[in-house]
């Protein structure tokens, strides 16, 4: 009946250790908090009257990090590179905000900052995790704004959008403008087209018909020359490189239908197709825009490796004090202070201090590494519980983390190209249609010269590759949407071409197949104390520690008092519980207070002992994801080769592989080893390889694999370099991705088949002069609509929230 075990922090959702010592009254009820940081944040939020935040948030808040120093933000050098001041004296800054995950966060930050007296405008973007803030600098310092954001539990860091990001924003805005113009124009032209069609039946007067055509021409001209421009420039570029892609038939279709309609309008004869032109352009732009948006959403472009590093650092000054300077000012040989919880800003060696350093960003392993005087530390690693002083040995390009980035760039260059099926067909199609048109014109030129132009035109209109160019994008858009609703974001179109030919699926271990956190697997009580008490003692000793081992015990804390607790970095912890001295840690540490059997095993085990002998052995394990086994089984049943590549060399990878039945395992693999492994598989019989991973150390491999998938908790950089991103923590989606890929490929094939069948059966009829232009127009629309409807079969069906009871 121990109720306290179930208590989790109202703010961050982590288990509350021991008895409730921290609480805040929110909306009239006392809420337990896990730590003073959460308590402080929750107090600020309630005191400001923002309790609605708790009502509407969809996820728990991030546990607030240790306070950062923001003083360096006010130095002139820093201000110059991040803050812009307009003529009226208003300063504005862009902040990257860590910890935003739902609309409630956006609301909270916006409203909290708006009530600061000097702030005139705040806009927070959920998808970009950015805030732009406008304020009077003489009344409020930038550091104070960042501190205010920190008091409600978010991390703020000024940034200037990178060149790439600015280009991306401009690209997206232009695409949206084009889409909007095409949409508005399509509606107008469509309305006029109805009048024209009705007029054809009811004998419209020629002057009105010409007026309506003229207006349609006007608007279609804007659409063709403004909205459809990317297709023309794309076609031109691909012709220059002699690899005509899908843009060529699209450009020809738009160009021909438009030219024929202009000709008809000017001469007052024939038929106009302005409505088809506009609709066609709009639908294609829609597909492209959605694809681009998905690509951009997957991660920020600023998610550069180097943005992981802190913006400001503490450097040793002349008079034995520490000065805050921007990170760009670090020189080789500087002495820097890295406080507990901070990211190490440059490669270096430890001058003083000893601490556990988390190198997950570099190696993917979440177990910290102990660093003492003389040890080398790498930029990007996170310092654990004690402050470290380091002497900088490498900065900029020479840092270890920068070398991973270079590896990534090389992998991206060498990534195998996927040629789209539609692209191959498009090239032959264009050539065929153009030569047929030429032959038709020549023949009619000799038979009946006055009909040659009209008939050639109708051949070209009838063969208009609308359906052909819609075949792939519509299917891909529908399938992408279906997957997104199930929690998987596909960001690159190449995925659909590569997936059906996939042979190998490679997984990373930590954080991908496992949850990336330790759990106590088994306990053996050795000294006659019951297991419950062993747990309670261990949990009490580890209380307040941020080490992953401590988290494994956090749920077992019953609030035993500990006296004179002492932590030996990298070895263990000791303390007095009920007057008895206990040590918890590795064999050599525990052996310091009592005699142990020489056969004591050391891997993945920690020991609890007192002076009378061993009390308990805890076997620790990185827990497997609950759905991993089923997923691997499913993949193997579908004849995929499953591999496991791990950076961990402790033997845990082999254990995991054995549990899941994975035959191919490599452990202790460095990023370059992983890359070589993937490239070797790709070399064998040209088989396609998929990589599933999450860490920065996986990024080069993610970039090199034919298809790559990043996990929900992956770093931003991994997400941007991956082709697909999981939006849910479960792996179940993976087999569904393959099912969807197969269905999509089939749909694309059906679409292409139909489009080609239609075009090639209509062309001979048109060539013989049997197809009047209006029939060509109907055929063109009908074939396009058929393709769209076929693709829509992939569109997600609305599922019932609760499954209906199945009759047994």
């Amino acid at each position, binding site marked *: 009946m121990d109720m306290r075990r179930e208590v989790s922090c109202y703010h961050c959702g982590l288990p509350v250790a021991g008895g409730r010592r921290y609480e805040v009254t929110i*909306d*009239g009820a006392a809420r337990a908090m896990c730590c003073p940081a959460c308590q402080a944040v929750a*107090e*600020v939020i*309630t*005191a*400001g*009257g*923002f*309790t*609605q935040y708790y009502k*509407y948030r969809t996820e728990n808040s991030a546990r607030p990090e240790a306070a950062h120093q923001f003083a360096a933000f006010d130095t002139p050098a820093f201000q110059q590179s991040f803050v812009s001041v307009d003529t009226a004296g208003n300063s504005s800054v862009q902040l990257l905000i860590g910890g935003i995950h*739902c*609309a*409630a966060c*956006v*609301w909270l930050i916006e*409203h*909290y900052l708006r*009530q600061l007296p000097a702030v005139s405008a705040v*806009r*927070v*973007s*959920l*998808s*970009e995790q950015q805030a732009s803030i406008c304020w009077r600098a003489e009344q409020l310092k930038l550091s104070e704004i960042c501190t205010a954001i920190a008091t409600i539990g978010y991390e703020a860091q000024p940034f200037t959008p990178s060149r790439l990001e600015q280009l991306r924003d401009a690209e997206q*805005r232009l695409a*949206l*403008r084009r889409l*909007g*113009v095409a949409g*508005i*124009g399509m509606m*107008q032209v469509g309305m006029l087209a109805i009048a024209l069609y009705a007029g054809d039946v009811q004998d419209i*007067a020629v002057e*009105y018909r010409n*007026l309506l055509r003229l*207006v349609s021409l*006007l*608007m279609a001209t804007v659409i063709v020359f403004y909205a459809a421009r990317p297709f023309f420039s794309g076609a031109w570029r691909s012709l220059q490189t002699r690899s005509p892609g899908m843009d060529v038939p699209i450009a020809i279709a738009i160009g021909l239908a438009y030219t024929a309609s202009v000709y008809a309008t000017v001469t007052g004869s024939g038929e106009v197709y302005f409505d088809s032109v506009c609709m066609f352009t709009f639908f294609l732009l829609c597909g492209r825009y959605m694809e681009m948006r998905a690509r951009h959403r997957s991660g920020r472009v600023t998610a550069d490796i180097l943005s992981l590093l802190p913006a400001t650092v503490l450097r040793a000054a002349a008079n034995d004090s520490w000065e805050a300077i921007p990170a760009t000012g670090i020189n080789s040989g500087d002495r820097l202070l890295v406080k507990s919880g901070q990211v190490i800003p440059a490669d270096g060696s430890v001058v003083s201090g000893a601490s556990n350093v988390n190198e997950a960003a570099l190696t993917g392993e979440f177990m910290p590494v102990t660093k003492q005087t003389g040890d080398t530390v790498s930029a990007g690693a996170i310092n654990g519980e004690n402050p470290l002083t380091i002497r900088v040995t490498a900065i900029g390009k020479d840092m270890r983390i920068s070398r991973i980035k270079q590896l990534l760039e090389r992998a991206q260059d060498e990534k195998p190209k996927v040629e789209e099926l539609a692209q191959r067909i498009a090239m032959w199609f264009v050539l065929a249609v153009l030569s047929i048109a030429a032959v038709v014109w020549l023949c009619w030129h000799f038979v009946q010269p006055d009909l040659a132009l009209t008939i050639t035109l109708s051949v070209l209109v009838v063969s208009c590759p609308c359906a052909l160019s819609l075949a792939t994008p519509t299917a891909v858009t529908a399938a992408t949407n279906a997957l997104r609703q199930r929690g998987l974001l596909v960001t690159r179109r190449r995925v659909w071409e590569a997936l059906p030919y996939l042979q190998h699926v490679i997984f990373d271990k930590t954080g991908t197949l496992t949850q990336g956190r330790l759990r106590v697997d088994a306990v053996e009580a050795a000294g006659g104390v019951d297991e419950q008490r062993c747990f309670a003692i261990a949990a009490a000793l580890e209380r307040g520690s941020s080490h992953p081992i401590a988290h494994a015990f956090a749920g077992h804390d019953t609030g035993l008092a500990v006296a004179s607790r002492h932590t030996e970095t990298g070895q263990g912890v000791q303390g007095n519980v009920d007057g008895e001295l206990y040590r918890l840690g590795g064999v050599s540490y525990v052996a310091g207070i009592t005699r142990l059997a020489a056969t004591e095993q050391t891997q993945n085990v920690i020991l609890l002992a007192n002076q009378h002998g061993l009390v308990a052995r805890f076997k620790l394990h990185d827990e497997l994801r609950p759905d991993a086994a089923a997923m691997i089984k499913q993949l193997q049943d579908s004849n995929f080769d499953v591999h496991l590549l791990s950076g961990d060399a402790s033997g845990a990878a082999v254990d995991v592989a054995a549990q899941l039945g994975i035959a191919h395992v490599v452990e202790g693999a460095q990023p370059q080893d992983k890359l070589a492994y993937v490239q070797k598989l790709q070399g064998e019989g040209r088989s396609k390889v998929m990589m599933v991973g999450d860490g920065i150390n996986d990024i080069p491999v993610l970039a090199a694999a034919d298809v790559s998938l990043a996990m929900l908790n992956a770093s931003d950089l991994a997400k941007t370099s991956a082709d697909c991103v999981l939006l849910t923590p479960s792996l179940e989606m993976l087999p569904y991705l393959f099912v969807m890929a197969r269905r999509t490929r089939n749909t694309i094939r059906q679409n292409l088949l139909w489009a080609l069948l239609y075009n090639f059966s209509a062309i001979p009829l048109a060539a013989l002069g049997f197809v009047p232009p209006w029939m060509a127009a109907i055929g063109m629309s009908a074939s396009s609509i058929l393709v769209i409807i076929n693709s829509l079969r992939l569109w997600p069906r609305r599922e019932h929230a609760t499954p209906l009871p199945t009759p047994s």
Partner: protein
Amino acid sequence: MESLFIFIPIVLVFIGIAVKLFFWAVDNKQFDDLDSAAQSILFDDDVPPHPPSADAPERKPDNE
């Protein structure tokens, strides 16, 4: 039917205005974040937020 000769140019002017408005909205980042705006209407802004006080968070029991 002669009215068409007047109405259609008027329509063109309106379309021009609509496109101009749309461009303004795009440049004003109205379409950049479609997710949070959809939910922000749920927040009840009628309750005026209390000004933050530097001293202890002594607050009136305004709930219920």
